[in-house]
């Protein structure tokens, strides 16, 4: 979903750049307060995983492929604001090292593939923690819905920016982008759930919204009753 230079007009590139810079700037401030010794390497590893997984295009319908975005995964593992930092590292490296995604479109790409999905998933997780039971199945279900939604929202934002730039009519690009990304989002959900389940099995304490350490609690209760 990387927008190259030439797809967006200057106004849209500037506006998305300003919004992305503000969001990531705030993300950096938040990350500065919340990062600790264990999450510093985790941020790097998450960025590396997102970069690697983004290279692995998978086929979807009719001569089209899709690839992982990773905003949802980063948001579940590190929180939404730190996730914006992770995705801006990845997308910036892709633009400057690999000529993937434009330079003037960098802000739009960080917004579409990082900020929007991360904040949407962050909001969804927060809501789920308040109203849904803290269970592994619930967390993974919310992760799946969040990952799919992050791709759809990113695709919608991309379509709106292309239409606002006069590149393609709104009525053409919105259904086209949402149609193909509804399929790609399923891949995103599958990869995100797999990765979150793996971390959940190894280190549930790292994930906000993970079920409490149920076995220990249950054990204590049994001992007290006996």
């Amino acid at each position, binding site marked *: *979903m990387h927008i*190259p*230079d*030439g*797809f967006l007009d200057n106004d849209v590139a500037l506006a998305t750049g300003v919004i992305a810079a503000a969001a990531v700037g705030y993300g950096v401030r938040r*990350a*500065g*307060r919340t*990062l*600790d010794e*264990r*999450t*510093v*390497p*985790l*941020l*790097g*590893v*998450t*960025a*590396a*995983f997102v*970069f*690697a997984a983004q*290279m*692995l*295009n*998978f*086929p*979807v319908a009719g*001569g*089209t*492929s*899709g*690839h992982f975005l990773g905003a949802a995964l980063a948001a579940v593992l590190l929180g939404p604001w730190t996730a914006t930092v992770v995705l801006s*590292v*990845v997308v910036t*490296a892709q633009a*400057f*090292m*690999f*000529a*993937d995604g*434009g*330079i*003037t479109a960098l802000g739009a790409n960080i917004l579409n593939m990082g900020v929007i999905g991360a904040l949407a998933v962050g909001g969804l997780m927060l809501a789920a923690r308040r109203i849904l039971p803290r269970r592994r199945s619930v967390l993974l279900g919310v992760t799946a819905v969040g990952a799919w939604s992050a791709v759809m929202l990113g*695709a919608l934002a991309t379509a709106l920016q292309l239409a606002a730039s006069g*590149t*393609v009519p709104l009525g053409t*690009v919105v259904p*086209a*982008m949402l149609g*193909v*990304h509804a399929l*790609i989002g399923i891949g995103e959900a599958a990869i995100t759930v797999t990765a979150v389940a793996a971390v959940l*099995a*190894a*280190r549930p*304490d*790292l994930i906000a919204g993970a079920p409490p350490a149920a076995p220990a609690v249950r054990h204590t209760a049994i001992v007290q009753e006996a």
Partner: protein
Amino acid sequence: MRRVSTNVLCAVGAAIAVGMATALSPFAASSPDGLERVAEDTGFAGDGRLHELQASSPVPDYAFPGIADERLATGLAGFVGTLGVLLCGIALAALIRRIGRRPVGAST
């Protein structure tokens, strides 16, 4: 499952990332992605161009330069790129943490 230390988790995660990018990326689907497909189908794919800064990209289009074998070039690009992003990410996170811990600015 027994809980693993953060260092082990990070090492395993980094190894999976580098391994995937190196060994699997040469076999990834090469058809256009969602946006590229829409751009081709609705007729604006031709608007895309490289920025002048990208004319000298170190690894253009995920193909390590100077290597004739396409799969090897892609795998090497994945290896170098993932390690690069890993190190940049850790360095940036360490820097952000150091700046963030300084008692300057507002605290809420």
